[in-house]
């Protein structure tokens, strides 16, 4: 389905995750963040880049992985993306919701 994010028509799934990463840029990320009342800072972007890098290397994402990322610790991760940090941050990053749950 299509959704208007940052004044552009973007392809997303029912949960609002981008289905085509090539449509992503920081403006889109910012737009999605605002829906969760998050104002993006440099630290937020650093985490987003880490997640995108992991995704492109096809490495699974998990809260545990965050602990070892060297970018951020889990407490900070929760502070930056309150609620479900992994779910919210991957949505902002334009990548699929992690399937760490099998």
């Amino acid at each position: 389905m299509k959704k208007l994010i940052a004044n552009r028509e973007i392809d997303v799934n029912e949960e609002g995750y981008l289905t085509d990463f090539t449509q992503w840029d920081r403006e889109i990320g910012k737009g999605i963040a605002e829906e969760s009342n998050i104002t993006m800072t440099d630290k937020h972007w650093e985490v987003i880049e880490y997640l995108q890098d992991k995704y492109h290397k096809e490495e699974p994402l998990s809260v545990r992985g965050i602990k070892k990322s060297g970018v951020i610790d889990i407490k900070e991760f929760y502070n930056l993306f309150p609620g479900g940090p992994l779910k919210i941050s991957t949505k902002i990053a334009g990548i699929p919701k992690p399937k760490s749950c099998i």
Partner: protein
Amino acid sequence: MKNLVILGAGTAGTMMANHLVKKLPKNEWQITIIDQYKTHYYQPGFLFLPFDIYTEDQVKKVGKKFIPKGVNYIQKKIELISPEANKVTLENEEIINYDLLIVATGSKIAPDEIEGMKGPEWHKSIFDFYSYEGAKALRDKLRSWEGGKLVVHITEMPIKCPVAPLEFAFLADSYFRNKGMRDKVDITYVTPLDGAFTKPKATKALHHLLVEKGISEVTNFNIERVDYENNKIIDYAETEVDYDLLVTVPTNMGDALIERSGMGDDLNFIPTDKNTLQSKDYENVFVIGDATNLPTSKAGSVAHFEAEILEENILKYIKGEPLDASFDGHANCFVETGNGKALLIDFNYVQEPVEGTFPIAGIGPMQLLKENRMNHMGKLAFRWVYWNMLLKGVPIPFVSANMSTKGKKIEA
């Protein structure tokens, strides 16, 4: 003479020994299986042990009984795998060389991963039921427990048999009802997932059952620590859940051997091709069962289906042919729902559990994603099937290695 070495004589390793001994020419291949433990546990039985449904003797046997004749069985600890040198080092520095290696070292609980979990209250007010010791200690506790807040908790995914904690909650409901003390017990199900299960349709069905049985749910709970002094678990978002009795599924990790050998991911699971079951890093190393990092359930049924695929691919590999037997992630799990009923789910990498009939389309006798007695009988019968058919590599009638879509109500 060439050497095929299997590490681990649990469900997957034992099945592979039984499969391959029938297929590999004896004058060309020697099969060796190595495991440090004498006892083979029927792990699905650990769910029933705490509720006095199974006895200790029903869940364990001497492992050697299930290793076929013609297979060299070594009961020793494995110190190291050196995949670059094609060798395995055992305790006392004994070296075993291999041409082909199958890693089936499974997964186990790691309660040390969470602060306060394996502390002074471990197996006193905090229990696991994923180990024989844990399940037995919990049984003894439940026999005399007078009630209070029971919290059934999952630490992090993936875990072996992801439905087991739900089954535990359901069986606990029945158990306390039968003891006439359900009104004294408050049951809460706490999970890091956003629902009762990992797949949408099954989550819906299982959520209904939780509601029906008066079990409350706390979702999206990522535990940070156990405060065993004040009887509560605390998550990273600072949500707290109080307990009197905590039954947790700790972090599940691959064997420490995998970490020592530098072959695993963050959780010591081995990166494995999800279709061929060949390890991603070494072409003469194959991985099966819970030891893999495959995106499917860690369960005995999965190991059973994988074993059929792996047998084919090992034979192809030996002949130098392409590994074209392809595993689809097939899992088949009975879910005990209490009161002598169960539901059944059958799914794979792409198809989530749906309603339908199983194993024979349109007939059953078992029903998918619906509670009934026949499914429960199936689950109990499975213990016999496990010891007498599954471990011996005997195919289960009507159930193929790759999932069948027949009899399933699949929406277009």
